[in-house]
C-alpha cells in the first residue's frame, strides 16, 4: 500500500475531526496540559488522545516501528490543522509527546525507543518532567536532587516541584546530580528516564492560584532506579536538559503533533467587547477600550506574522535566532495581558468566579487570566527569558 499524499491525508483528517471531536462533557475542560486537576478531566482527555492516535492523527511522522505513522511532518501538520479547525480538546500527554518523545527518538537507545514511544502516543503511559526544585527554579543548573550510583542502580534522594500531572505519570524525565564534586555545577548532572510508580517516590498535589490542581511536588526517598534509565550518558545531563528545552520552546522539531494548550482566541475577545455591557453600552463603545483592543489585535497579529517571517531568511539576517527565542516570552505575556483585558471588559462581572451562575461564560475569563501565569513563570520566567534574549541575541553581558 502506498502512503497517502498530504492532500489525501488532510482531507481524511478533516472528515475525521469533523465527526469525532467530542461534545461538551458538561464540565470545564483544561485549556492547557498544566491544568488537569480532576480525574474526570484526566479520563476524558486520555480517551481523546487515544482516539486521535488510533485514527492515525498523532505521531504520524514518527517511525512505524515505534508506533508512529511513518509519514512526513507535513502529514502531521495537516492533521493538527484539522484538529484545530474543529476545536478538538487538548492532547493530554504533553511532556511525552513534545519533549520526552522527541528526545528518546533522537538520542535514546533502541531498547528505550521500543519501550516508551508507542505508549506515549496512546496515552497509556503519562510522562512528567523533573527539572525545577523547591530551592532551584530559575537556576536550573544548580539542581541538587541526588542520584548516587550503587552497582547497576542509582539511588535518588531529594525533591522536584511543579511536576505537571505528577500524580498521573508513570515516567519522569529527570535531571539529577550524579557527581557533587564535578569541576562545575553543570558537569555533575545526569539525565534519567525514571519510573514514578516505585517505592520511595511520592507525589503531593499542589493547589494552584486558580484553586484547582494540576501540579505536584515529588519526593524521592532512597528510590532505586536502574542505571539503564540514563539517557545521553552520565555527566551529560545539562546538555540533554538544554536539548529538551529546545523541544519545549519549539526551537527543535520532532514533536508528535497536535496541541497541548488552547490560547485565548482574540476573536472571542472582540466578540466579548461587543456583547459585554458597561454603563449600559457595549464595552467596545468605550474609546479607551477600543483603542486597547486595536493594540492587542496588532500585537497578536505581529506574533503570527513573526511565525512566518522566521522562515524567510532574507528578513531575519540580522539576528537569525531572534524570532524563535522571543516567541515564548511574547506569547505568554500577551496571553496574560489579553485575558486580563477580558476581565476589564466584563466590568462588575469580573467579581465572579468559576462555578457562579451569575458569572459571564462560567468564570472562564477569570480562570484564563490566573492560569496565564503558568506560562509566564513556567519553562523559564519572563525575566529569565529577557536575560536569555539580551545575552544570546543582543550580546549583552551575563547577569549574575
Amino acid at each position: 500500500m502506498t502512503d497517502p499524499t498530504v492532500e489525501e491525508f488532510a482531507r481524511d483528517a478533516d472528515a475525521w475531526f469533523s465527526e469525532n471531536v467530542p461534545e461538551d462533557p458538561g464540565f470545564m475542560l483544561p485549556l492547557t496540559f498544566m491544568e488537569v486537576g480532576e480525574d474526570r478531566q484526566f479520563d476524558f482527555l486520555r480517551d481523546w488522545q487515544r482516539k486521535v492516535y488510533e485514527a492515525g492523527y498523532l505521531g504520524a511522522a514518527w517511525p512505524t516501528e515505534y508506533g508512529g505513522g511513518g509519514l512526513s511532518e507535513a502529514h502531521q501538520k495537516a492533521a493538527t490543522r484539522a484538529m484545530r479547525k474543529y476545536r478538538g480538546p487538548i492532547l493530554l500527554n504533553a511532556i511525552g509527546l513534545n519533549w520526552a518523545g522527541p528526545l528518546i527518538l533522537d538520542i535514546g537507545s533502541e531498547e528505550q525507543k521500543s519501550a516508551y514511544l508507542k505508549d506515549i502516543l496512546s496515552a497509556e503511559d503519562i510522562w512528567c518532567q523533573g527539572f525545577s526544585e523547591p530551592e532551584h527554579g530559575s537556576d536550573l543548573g544548580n539542581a541538587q536532587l541526588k542520584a548516587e550510583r550503587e552497582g547497576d542502580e542509582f539511588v535518588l534522594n531529594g525533591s522536584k516541584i511543579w511536576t505537571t500531572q505528577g500524580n498521573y505519570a508513570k515516567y519522569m524525565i529527570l535531571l539529577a546530580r550524579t557527581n557533587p564534586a564535578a569541576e562545575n555545577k553543570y558537569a555533575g548532572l545526569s539525565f534519567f528516564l525514571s519510573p514514578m510508580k516505585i517505592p520511595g517516590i511520592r507525589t503531593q498535589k499542589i493547589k494552584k492560584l486558580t484553586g484547582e490542581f494540576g501540579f505536584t511536588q515529588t519526593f524521592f526517598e532512597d528510590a532505586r532506579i536502574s542505571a539503564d534509565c540514563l539517557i545521553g550518558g552520565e555527566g551529560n545531563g545539562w546538555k540533554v536538559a538544554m536539548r529538551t528545552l529546545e523541544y519545549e520552546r519549539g526551537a527543535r522539531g520532532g514533536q508528535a503533533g497536535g496541541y497541548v494548550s488552547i490560547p485565548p482566541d482574540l476573536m472571542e475577545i472582540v466578540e466579548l467587547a461587543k456583547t459585554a455591557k458597561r454603563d449600559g453600552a457595549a464595552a467596545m463603545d468605550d474609546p479607551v477600550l477600543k483603542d486597547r483592543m486595536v493594540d492587542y489585535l496588532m500585537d497578536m497579529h505581529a506574533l503570527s506574522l513573526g511565525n512566518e517571517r522566521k522562515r524567510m531568511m532574507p528578513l531575519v539576517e540580522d539576528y537569525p535566532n531572534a524570532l524563535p527565542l522571543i516567541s515564548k516570552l511574547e506569547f505568554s505575556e500577551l496571553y496574560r495581558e489579553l485575558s486580563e483585558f477580558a476581565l476589564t471588559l466584563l466590568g462588575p462581572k469580573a467579581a465572579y468566579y468559576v462555578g457562579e451562575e451569575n458569572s459571564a461564560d462560567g468564570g472562564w475569563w477569570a480562570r484564563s487570566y490566573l492560569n496565564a501565569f503558568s506560562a509566564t513563570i513556567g519553562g523559564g520566567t519572563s525575566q529569565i527569558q529577557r536575560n536569555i534574549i539580551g545575552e544570546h541575541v543582543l550580546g549583552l553581558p551575563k547577569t549574575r
Partner: protein
Amino acid sequence: MTDISASLGQLGISEEQVDLLHVATEFCRDKSPVEDVRKLIETDRGYDEKVWSEIAELGWLGIAVPEEFGGSGLGVGEIVPIAEQMGRALMATPFIPATVAGQLLAKAGTERQKEEVLPALAAGERFATTAFGEPGDDMAALGENEAGGFLVSGTTRLVEYAADADLIILAFSHGGSRQLALVERSALPGEALRREAIIDDTRRAYELRLDTFEVAGDAVLDPDKVEEALAHADMVGALLYAADMVGGTFRVVDYTADYLRTRKQFEKVIGSFQALKHPLVDAFIGHERARSHLYAAAHSFGDQGRGEVAVRMAKAQGEKAYAYAADRAIQFHGGFGFTYDCDAGLHRRRAIWNATRYGDARAQKRRLAELLF
C-alpha cells in the same frame, strides 16, 4: 462571529525586495555614516546632492513608476527595503516626499503631465515634493479662469524639501473640492518659502505662503482622480515612514546595546544590570513586531481593503517601537544621552517627526477600529 483575520496583512517577500534589501543595506551604511549625517545637519539643504544623484542612478526613484513613463513598474511594496535601510542609517534625503510625489502624479496626472514630467522624476533628473497642507492650512483658489487655471492664495505648512525641489504638487481647495497642481518651484515669488524649525534636524520642511499666485490650466491635475490619488499617496507616505521607523528602531537598539556592552559603572559592564537589559529586550521585541507588520504591509499593499489595514498597522507599530526604543536609548546613555552628541537624541527626534507624517498612531488606530470592529 466576524472573522477579522481575513482583513489583516499577509507576509511574503519578492526577489526584487530581497535584492533591493541587500543593495540598500550596503549603500545606506556606506553613504550615510553618522558623521556625515551630522555634517548635513549644519547645511541649509540638509542632504548630500552627490548621494542623491547616486540614488537616482540606482533607479530607486522610479521603482513603482509605470514602465511606459521610464520607471521599473514594480509595486510600492518593493520600495520598503530602501526606506527601511535609509532609516537605519538616519539618512538625510528627500526620498520619501519625492516618491510620494511621483506616485501622486502617476495616479492623477493628465496624460501630458505624465509624459512630460514622470520620466524625469523616475530618472531623478528633477524631483518633486508635495504640499498637502496640515489641518488649519488655508491654501485656496480665489477663482477659476477660462483655461481651467486658478489664482491661489493661502498658507501650506511642512512642505518637505520645498526649497530644493524642482516641482511642488500643491493641494488647494476650490469650492467644496480639493485640487492638485504641478507648480515649478522656480516660478514661486522670492518670499514664498520660509524654512521651518522642525524637531528632526536630519530633514527639512518649509512653509509655503502664496498671494494670488497664478496656476496655469495645464498645470492642474485631473480633478476626477484627485481624491483617489490623495488616498493612495496617504498610504504610500505612511508605508515609507513606517519603514523609516522600523529601520531607525533597529539602529537605535543596536547603538544602545553597543553602549551597554562597553560602558562600566560600579566595576560592572552596565548591560549586566537587568534594569537596563530587560527594557532593551522589550525595545528589540518592539522592533521585531514592527518589522513583521512592515513587510506584511509591503506585501499586501495592493490588496483591496487588506492593504490599508496592513499599512495603518505598520505605521502605528513602527511609531510605538521607535518611540520606545529611542526614548529608552536617551535614558540608558545617562548624562551623555542628554547631550546633542549622542545619536539617541537624533533618533528620538526623527521618531517624533516620522510619527506626525501621514497620521500618528492615535489616528491610525482610530481608523483601524472603524475598519475592523
